[in-house]
């Protein structure tokens, strides 16, 4: 009897903590969405309104007037898509080489690879920018994706996963007479699918969220990515919270839907990636 009471109290406490935490986590999301349809008055009065006093979809039109968000959307999708595909392919090939190909200095080369994973991108952005500018590649998709076609992180994760690969299978495949590419495509890739999915998710999100590099190599609004368009709405000299929140709401809506409805897929992708 007392055990069930204690159980109930414990459960209620768990709910309470979870609900409080959920409210805290969700609030900024709610505020961005609610604020995106608020009239200026709601946002600039003190204290500001929590609930919109009316629907003002005009905010969205104003955002599109301020920055070419449609173009920037497309740019972000193209750039992130290309980077994701390229990183998966190059990581697969590189990791394959590290594990299955005989190579001199394998340890040293891999160590170098690992080191590049730890190098803060900000530390080397300057020379990279000079390379792009000198080659007159600014304002091109090429400049936006070029430095990111390979991924040390992806290679690292795939290598770790390949190391678990039973060597007998490789030997069996060799006896069957299948070459490296065939072996990679027919056997290694299907087995590593969860890791590949994890890398794809990771690559896509990091590419999608890039900020510093696109800022340096693009200056035409129509060539810029979504993150830049948004940050232009928040400028220290003039910031209209209405436009900022509407811009953010527009830009996160797709990823938000992805997280809510595609959660199962993402979790699956992360499972293997996190373990190794």
């Amino acid at each position: 009897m007392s055990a069930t009471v204690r159980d109930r109290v414990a459960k209620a406490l768990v709910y309470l903590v979870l609900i409080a935490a959920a409210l805290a986590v969700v609030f900024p999301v709610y505020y961005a969405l609610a604020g995106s349809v608020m009239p200026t008055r709601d946002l600039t009065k003190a204290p500001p309104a929590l609930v919109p006093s009316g629907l003002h979809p005009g905010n969205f039109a104003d955002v599109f007037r301020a920055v070419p968000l449609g173009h920037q959307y497309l740019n972000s999708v193209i750039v992130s898509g290309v980077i994701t595909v390229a990183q998966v392919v190059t990581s697969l090939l590189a990791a394959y080489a590290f594990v299955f190909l005989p190579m001199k200095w394998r340890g040293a080369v891999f160590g170098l690879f690992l080191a590049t994973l730890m190098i803060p991108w900000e530390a080397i952005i300057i020379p990279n920018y000079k390379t792009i500018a000198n080659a007159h590649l600014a304002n091109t998709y090429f400049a936006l994706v070029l430095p990111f076609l390979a991924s040390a992180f992806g290679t690292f994760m795939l290598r770790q996963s390949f190391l678990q690969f039973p060597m007998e299978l490789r030997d069996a495949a060799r006896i069957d007479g299948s070459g490296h590419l065939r072996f990679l495509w027919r056997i290694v890739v299907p087995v590593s699918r969860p890791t590949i999915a994890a890398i794809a998710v990771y690559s896509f999100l990091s590419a999608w969220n890039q900020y510093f590099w696109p800022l340096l190599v693009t200056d035409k609004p129509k060539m810029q990515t979504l993150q830049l368009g948004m940050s232009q709405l928040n400028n220290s000299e003039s910031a209209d919270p209405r436009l900022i929140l509407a811009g953010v709401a527009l830009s996160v809506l797709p990823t938000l839907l992805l997280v809510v409805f595609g959660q199962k897929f993402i979790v699956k992708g992360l499972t293997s990636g996190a373990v190794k």
Partner: protein
Amino acid sequence: MRRTLHGRRSVRIAAGLLAAGLALSACGSSSKGGSSGGSSGGSSGGSSGSVPGADALDKASGVVNLTFWHSMKDTNQKAVTAIVDAFNTKYQGKIHVTDTYQGSYDDAIAKYKTAVSSHTTPSLMQVYDVGTRFMVDSKQTIPVADLASKDGYALGDLQPNIVNYYSVGGKLQSMPFNSSMPLLYINVEAFKKAGLDPANPPKTLDELADAAKKLTVKDANGTTTQYGFGAADYGWFVEQLTAESGALYCDNDNGRTARATKLNLDSGAPLTYTKWWSDLVKGGYASNTGRPTADAQAAFKAGKVAMNLESTGVLGGYVDAGTKAAAPFTVATAAFPKVTAADSGGPVIGGASLWIDRAGHSDAEVRAAWEFAKFAASAPQQAAWHQATGYFPVSVAALQDPTDVAYRQKHPQFQTAIDELTATKPSTATAGCLLGVMPQARADLEQAMLNVATTGTTAEAALADASTKIAKLISDYNSAVG
């Protein structure tokens, strides 16, 4: 992870390789030269190459294409495009200008730096006032005074105070384009409620402090519902007050006879204002919205702040916000305050100007850019620009333009700025300080002021600290210029 040992060895190897790289680069010195020269200062400025005459453009075959970098966004960007379109129509088949927005003034300068290295500078570039010293030191541009004297073109229609700022070594370096001035903004209703007369606004810092105390309103909880005063923690205001008091902000005649070596922060207006502002903040009479000017603007627009310092550029937005606010209010403007009533100086002109690149650009291109600069600064264009953006017209004649007179009748608040400017006699103090590292110096001063307002640090100590820091910055810059 069964391969721990392997992984760890890899890390060590990588670290070893990096160390080797470090040693290598330390051996290979590639000294490209560069003596650490002293201050060759305000002499002729950044001309590079000869001054082309009008015939260079006449002889050019086909269309001369110009690139124009600017930092105007939203409404202001549209106004820039309007000028460019009008110019392109006028010079159809002869000159074509392509304008591109380059991000904030800081971003644009950052891009300009790399453009210099890769020889891809634009034909024309809009640079903020505090970038003037840097542009001269870059030695990429041609002073507009040279082009004007070649043509016998009179620069007399330009506002003398504005010309004063952009002149280095007695020569106008760049074409003034967009100018703004500091004003005191007042919430009329708040004034009336506190029993103050909005028609007789405070004129000195002391009067401002008294008014701020009367204008501060608290509710039953003790929460402040209205601050008497609220301005951004912004170095520009300190520069303005210094000029108003007739003092120099930096040495070597505000950096105009030779490159400046230090800022005069530890006495006079900077010290007074820092103490004054931090006292108001600590007393609860002024809101502290930190360094972003947008945040201070938001507070005034929300009616949470009764008095605010800002540039003329925000006037339109303020009036608009006043009518749309939850508790609507009227906006009035007054002259920027002085430290004491006896101060005889005036404001420094803020804003930006157009620079014509010489290095790596053909004679025809330079001439075409000069045509555009003259066009953009002409009375009709400046009058339209003034009305579209709220920037102060750089052309004297623009103020007589009938459309502009009508505009000022509709926006009487703007007259304050014109009175303020015409009352100012150009002097070394009102020319403002030229400094290659002004943006960083401003930031350091703002940090010091914020430090005083939020911690126990004294104004004297904080400003002395900032002075030392800035002096080091300046000497690094001056030696980098060589």
